[in-house]
């Protein structure tokens, strides 16, 4: 109220912008002082690399720097479109992304609905506590556990197979199985964590809705379907947008720690190929070009997901 009347007064007699800026600055100088190091950090570590994208259009060399390296236009992008290794990684990433969206995404939703139906509070507590622990372990630790567990000679799976006199292939991580290993291990690590946000949203559903549905004779399944699930739709939409916006950057940690040279045909993903290009082949400009290409794809996917969710659901992230 008061601020509006002040604005009205300002309209008749506005001080020059410079003075207005100065008084605002005076009033908030402490907060600008606090912001300064933060903005400096963003300028250097986020916007700095964005500026560095120009190297994608150069033949960058460390010794000449960004200013001195020759400009080559779209040469690296032309090379990119003819690079079979890149398209292999691209194709694998798209397939893995589809697995992430179609198989992995619904699992925490389903699990949270099931956990929510558990009768005893202590059961719900135990289920949550144990299943979200792996989220806090690094992929190095998880991969170490998995490699030991499924070791074809000494692992647990091998021991069981021997017990039933089944013969296992000499290596369980193969071209054929690798994608499924990525999917299963990611569910193992993240599904419990993914549940939390849905369970928290369920806790916020108005209990009178359930009582009304119960009074109308709705069974537990019908209440889950007609009350719980609609209450989650906004959260589901936001989680889906966030997933789709980043899904082309998926898999690096897993592939880096679980793959070997023999599974590259199905296992190589874009981020892993970029990593090798940059740190092993030192093709910095080519790496920058691949990174930019992927960033543009990610951005397009994000906008598409956001637009679709807005149309369907009225929900968006901005």
């Amino acid at each position, binding site marked *: 109220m008061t601020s509006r009347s002040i604005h009205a007064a300002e309209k008749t007699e506005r001080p020059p912008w410079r003075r207005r*800026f100065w008084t605002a*600055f005076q009033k*908030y100088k*402490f*907060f*600008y002082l*606090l*912001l300064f*190091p*933060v903005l400096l950090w*963003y300028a*250097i*570590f986020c916007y*700095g*690399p*964005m500026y*560095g*994208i120009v190297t994608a259009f150069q033949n960058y060399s*460390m010794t000449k*720097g*960004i200013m001195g390296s020759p400009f080559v236009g779209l040469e690296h992008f032309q090379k990119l479109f003819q690079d079979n290794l890149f398209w292999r990684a691209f194709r694998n990433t798209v397939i893995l992304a589809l697995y992430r969206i179609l198989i992995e995404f619904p699992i925490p939703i389903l*699990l949270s609905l099931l*956990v929510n*139906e558990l*009768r005893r509070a202590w*059961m719900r507590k135990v*289920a949550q506590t*144990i*299943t979200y*622990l792996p989220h806090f*372990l*690094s992929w*190095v*630790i998880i*991969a*170490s*556990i998995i*490699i*030991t567990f499924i070791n074809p000679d*000494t692992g*647990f799976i091998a*021991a*069981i197979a021997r017990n039933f006199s089944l013969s296992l292939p000499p290596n369980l991580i193969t071209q054929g199985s690798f994608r499924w290993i990525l999917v299963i291990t990611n569910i*193992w690590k993240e599904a*419990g964590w993914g549940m939390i*946000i849905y369970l928290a*949203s369920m806790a916020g559903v108005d209990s009178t809705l359930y*009582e009304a549905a119960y009074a109308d004779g709705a069974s*537990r399944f019908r209440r889950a379907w007609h009350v719980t699930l609609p209450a989650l739709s906004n959260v589901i939409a936001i989680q889906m947008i966030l997933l789709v916006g980043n899904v082309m950057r998926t898999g690096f940690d897993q592939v880096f*720690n679980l793959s070997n040279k023999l599974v590259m045909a199905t296992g190589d993903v874009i981020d892993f190929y970029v*990593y090798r*290009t940059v740190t092993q082949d030192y093709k*910095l400009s080519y*790496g*920058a070009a691949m*990174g*930019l290409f992927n*960033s543009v794809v990610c*951005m397009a996917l994000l906008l598409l997901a956001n637009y679709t969710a807005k149309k369907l659901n009225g929900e968006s*992230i901005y």
Partner: protein
Amino acid sequence: MKDKFIWFDVLNTAVIALFVLAIFIPVWYIFVISTSTYSAYIADPYHMLPTSFTLQEYQRALMRTRELTLSFWVTIKVTAVGTALSMLFTVIGGYALSKNKLPGRNLIFRLIIVTMFFGGGLAPTYILIRGLGMNNTIWALTLPGAIATYNLILMKNFFTTVNPSLEEAAKIDGYNDVQILLRVVLPMSKPMLAAISLFYAVGYWNDYFNAIIYSSSQNLIPFQMYLRNLIIVNSAAGRAGVQTGITAYEQFKMAVIIVGIVPVLAVYPFVQKHFTKGVVLGSVKE
């Protein structure tokens, strides 16, 4: 509401129990091996029942493997320095951005949000960090990831919920801006500060990527990288300094994995208390 106990409850409990077991068993398996004597390790290929118990390989790992203890120190240093830096940036940034009337706030906020979805990528970041001469220093392992924008937004959202009339009252009592932040706002935000520092600390504890690209120095190998060389790469370099004989090598490796899990388990109760709240708050959009 009273529902009858039906077959669905039995099935549901069984499904959830199976999932919980699937999470638990591989970790338990590692633990049992790590505490097995060689004869017990050989006798039972399932390693589900702890028929023997020895901490010999833990002792060897933590006291007599110089490479491992060194990597542990690197990780502890990185976690401490990194978390302190991260919290400083996140608190001051979140606090300033929580002031709704701050001129320019919306523009700044937008510029920050953009970085969540668009970035330079690996190659330009690599060029930048090398260009700044940060490789092979602890700064390469802490500074580039010092602010997680997601956490900054969490912090900002939390500060917005602090009642502004309290700050006004403190001002009337003669507190200056710094005192208001340190003596009024921060003490009220303890649970959130705890949650976010744990987020950061776990992130630094688990990080290996920055070390792999920016550190070639023997003195700057963090624990996760040591573990990776030991088990995943399984190279001669990874085995350097390991004095365990062939009979105890598996137990030694498993002990190292457990050593990496225990600190996370130790902070887990606090995580439990605060994280859920943080995640839910984080889903509240601007």
